[in-house]
């Protein structure tokens, strides 16, 4: 139940925005659609809302195929990146809009509307701005009005398109926490689009990674971070170093090509905090690097290195380890990956 998206494809001319996306979102979740810009996240959101129609595939909301339905019959609330508030209406009128356009039979009375809107205004903490017009509000306040307006019609699903994209960093952080709390309070199935992985990790309890129109992986933030399904997800989430690593077949030479003798290199990817630095040469394969720069401020010490094969990498080590090794710029150290992600048949580069 909840939201089911079955084999949805959509293209705009020659551009394939979505390619055969199948996805299920359970009822009541707070989900982030995460991916690079232009990857199809917003298109998927608009298809769920009914603002775009898929070329093929179907959308099932709460057990009902709504593929052929208008946005107004889908019970969804949509919050746009640039708020899309009605400029000529006050905050109150904006929030009340969805209720006042109902057909007479199902329209609540004036008092009921007033009551409801007032409660929503309290929820979004805009009590002092009831009679203001959108142009008299700050970005964060406008976004909250847009949210309250969407909630006023009691949607079964709340869709937010880059809701914090146009706000400055501090307001964005506040609103993220606020959105989490709001979700705990209202408990409506919520999907929001973002290209900011930190935001997605912080707010959502389910992540859906979308890239170039394809669904790359869906799961909890933890799963996605620790068990990335493919190189794209691994590289997209968190920091990653990719560099040449002397392969297992040490000192194997390529005789046929007559190239210079040397270790067989393969490309590996390791997260910065999983790189160990050592002054003593380790057993087996070894990779040396020169320290270019050290950033000692913060909970971790960031060390930038250049390997002997010319790759630039960054390692995060603990403050204690840093003091113990007494690292200095220009020193030669050995780089030991503690855990490396190896995707079959790809160079993860």
């Amino acid at each position: 139940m909840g939201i089911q998206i079955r084999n949805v494809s959509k293209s705009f001319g020659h551009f394939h925005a979505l390619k055969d996306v199948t996805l299920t979102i359970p009822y009541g979740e707070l989900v982030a659609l995460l991916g690079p810009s232009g990857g199809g996240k917003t298109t998927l959101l608009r298809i769920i809302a009914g603002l775009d129609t898929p070329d093929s595939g179907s959308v099932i909301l709460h057990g009902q195929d709504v593929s052929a339905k208008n946005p107004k019959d889908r019970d969804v609330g949509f919050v746009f990146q640039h708020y899309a508030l009605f400029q000529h209406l006050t905050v109150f009128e904006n929030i009340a809009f969805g209720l006042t356009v109902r057909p007479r039979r199902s329209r609540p009375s004036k008092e009921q509307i007033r009551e409801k809107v007032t409660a929503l205004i309290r929820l979004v903490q805009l009590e002092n701005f009831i009679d203001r017009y959108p142009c008299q509000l700050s970005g964060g306040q406008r976004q909250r009005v847009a949210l309250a307006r969407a909630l006023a019609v009691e949607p079964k699903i709340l869709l937010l398109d880059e809701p914090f994209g146009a706000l400055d960093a501090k307001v964005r952080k506040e609103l993220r926490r606020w959105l989490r709390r709001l979700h705990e309070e209202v408990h409506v199935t919520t999907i929001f689009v973002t290209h900011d992985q930190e935001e997605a990790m912080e707010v959502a309890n389910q992540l859906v990674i979308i890239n170039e129109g394809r669904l790359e992986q869906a799961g909890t933030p933890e799963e996605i971070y620790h068990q990335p399904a493919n190189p794209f997800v691994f590289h997209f989430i968190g920091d990653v170093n990719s560099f040449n690593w002397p392969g297992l077949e040490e000192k194997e030479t390529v005789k046929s090509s007559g190239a210079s003798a040397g270790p067989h290199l393969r490309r590996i990817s390791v997260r910065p905090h999983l790189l160990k630095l050592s002054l003593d040469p380790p057993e087996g394969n070894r990779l040396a690097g020169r320290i270019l720069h050290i950033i000692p401020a913060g909970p971790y010490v960031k060390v930038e290195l250049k390997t002997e094969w010319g790759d630039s990498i960054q390692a995060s080590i603990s403050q204690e380890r840093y003091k113990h090794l007494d690292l200095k710029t220009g020193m030669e150290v050995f780089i030991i990956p503690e855990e490396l992600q190896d995707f079959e048949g790809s160079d993860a580069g």
Partner: protein
Amino acid sequence: MLRQRSIIPGFSLTMGFSLTYLGLLVLIPLSMVFLKSSQLSGAEICRILFSPRALAAYQLSFGASLIAAGVNSVFGFLVAWVLVRYSFPLKSLVDALVDLPIALPTAVAGISLTTLYSPNGWIGSTLAQWGIQGSYSRLGVVIALTFIGLPFVVRTIQPVLKDADPEVEEAALCLGASRWQTFLKVLLPSLVPATLTGFALAFARALGEYGSVVFISGNMPMTTEIVPLLIMTKLEEYDYPSATALAAFMLCVSFLLLFVINSLQWWSQRHRKKLS
């Protein structure tokens, strides 16, 4: 207050030029109108301004201009809507056609409209079957004024409509509004100021129109004589004071009307100016 520190140099130069320019082209000629008519005594001015023939002319000029601007506001809005919202073959040609009334010499427009709407013209003959006279009637004046006013309405609404954020309409749809409600409650209010501006421009243009109307109206005093024509007649009779008195009166009334329309416009978007 006049002299503000600005990065852009040449304030005094540009301001001086602008004032001279406006003075030479607008202020001096207009003040001459008042100067010339001030040669008359108050009683004489009243006699000229409120003669039955002048009153009839005012009625026609203002009435026909208002009707024409009103018609243009509705249908110009429609044309702008079609041009912005839909794509169809030869759209750019239709778009260019809208400007024709500005570019066309008004006499040419007048003559072709007269021929078309005269009792034996293409459209006029059809109208005649229903007992409606196109050319040489007050209706003819309205037709000519509508023709010349159309571009002003279309060209003021078009850019505003083009800039209208489609997301606002989508938001309304998501909130359960029908297409019609979305149009009435969301789109139309945002276009009211532009439509008023278009109306004011079309109205002002129609008040001053002379060339096309003289051909189509038939120019019968008391029935199809517009004020600009009356002024022309006075000039031809070498009655300069009367002509300038009428001109001054037209100027004042037009100014007043434009002022009212502008205030209306300011009122319609007052919420945008509050604070912010």
